């Protein structure tokens, strides 16, 4: 099963101009547990997917909202000359196809 078939929300946005943050939210406790166990959502896998070092990836479980929060540094500050996504709202896409 892919993450896009399981999660209720998969989104990305700037958290300040220097960081990108991803929110993955689930409908049920069981789905959330699947998400938490998924190797593709661990720091090492996210690091490979986004080309940032694993020690700069933070993965924070947020059980209150059945959500996983992932934050990584941006390659460059938002809105710089070669930026592709000033708000960072479309950087979640590689996560959608993750096999769980």
């Amino acid at each position, binding site marked *: 099963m892919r993450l896009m078939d399981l999660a209720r929300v998969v989104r990305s*946005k*700037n*958290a*300040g*101009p*220097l*960081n990108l*943050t991803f*929110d993955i*939210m689930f409908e049920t406790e069981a789905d959330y547990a699947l998400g938490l166990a998924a190797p593709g959502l661990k720091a090492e896998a996210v690091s490979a997917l986004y*080309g940032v070092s694993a020690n700069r990836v*933070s993965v*924070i479980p*947020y059980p*209150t*909202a*059945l*959500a996983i*929060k992932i*934050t990584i*540094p*941006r*390659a*460059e*500050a*938002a*809105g*710089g*000359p*070669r930026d*592709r*996504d*000033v*708000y960072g709202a*479309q*950087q979640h*896409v*590689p996560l959608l196809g993750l096999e769980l």
Partner: protein
Amino acid sequence: MNAAFKLRARFQASAAKTLKLVGASGQLGYGVPEAAFEAALACRPDMIGADMGSTDIGPTFLGSGAMATSPEQTRKDLARLLAGARAIDAPLIVGSAGSAGAGPHLDATLAMVRDIAAAEGLSFRLTVIRSDIPAATAAEAVRDGRVRSMGVLPEFTAEAAHKAAHLVGQAGTEAFVRALETDPDVIIAGRACDTGIYAAIPEWLGFEPAAATHMAKIVECASLCCVPGGRDSILATLDRAGFELESMNPARAATPMSVAAHSLYEQGDPHQIIEPAGVCMVDTARYAALDDRRTRVEGARWVPAERPTIKLEGAEYLGERAVLLAGSADPRFIDRIKANLEEVADVVRGLVCEPGVAPDYELFFRTYGLDAVFPWPNAPETPPREIFILGECIAPSQERALAVVKSTKQYLLHHGFPGRLSTSGNIAFPFTPPELSAGPAYRFNVYHLMTVDDLAPHFPIEVEDIRA
């Protein structure tokens, strides 16, 4: 007595010791939904707040001094809030004036406020908080080792401070509390923490920072914490133990799940809200439904900072930007698009630069359909049927930037590449001219944290009595 001191007297005389706060807009200048705002006024709130700015919009507005929102809509929104707040004699607090909160943004907002007051016959005391940080102040902090980086930007230097076209600090709750001591009807702040707008009155009246800050972080986005999320006014009712949330649009519900989930929004860590004077820990917060549209929140904790910090923001001028808009559907052209673009860039360099002279501009392309939005490591299995090419040039002058993209357009149209069939043109223009000036270009060169002994000297306040 003006609105602030009247509120304090009323609060001190009351037995209930609750405060009703309205978040009217998370981004003033894009329109304030009227029905929800009227419903909020009918609740007779103790204050009305609105946030006006963000770094989301990118560095150009901070750099140039321009507002991101249209002047007409911004004026209309400000007029609605001023009229509403004055009608019920409640303090109105607006933060991050004019999109980025530097001097020019604040002054343009104040000019609008004075103009509205004259046109609408409104009299009030206006207290202003300025957020510009002198480059020398930041440079001194660098010398003392009091500035640290928060990510990809290099370590802060005095040179970076001087290069910033505008340098601002985020004013916190402290500055708004100081402004309240001047008995204002209206507070307009330059760049500010969005929480300060809503946490200031509670803290001024003796509430603990924990619940006040948690409440503030939610209502500053108006009804975004609801299902469905939206931009309608929201009402928070704060007491000593916690707060209750209710959207002023009956179609939106603040549920325990939707409110808890809001802690994720645009935050690197959902468990903490970092403020100049400390950290609000919300990992211990509890969310309980009062009914199907209202939620009660309790349990946040406040950890004071050892020394206060100010978040600095600065934007550096890079040059003038011009763009080229073109599409293609030709499979042969699309197949070797990267090589085509590189070859054309080389040809253009030879045409617009003297031999042996390095280019004074940067030219680059985003190829939509391939990898413009995300830097995919591999090419797609099937080539796209169409692509869109956005050429961008940043050069020392508008004329120079336009000259580069104009030559680029012509040579891209007629670029002869191996296997070419469409010898009358490689690209389609949606309209002419397909080359457009896009104004000055900036980049964030400062987004750093400065430790200070005292926040107050960095955010001076001014008081102005406006008489219609």
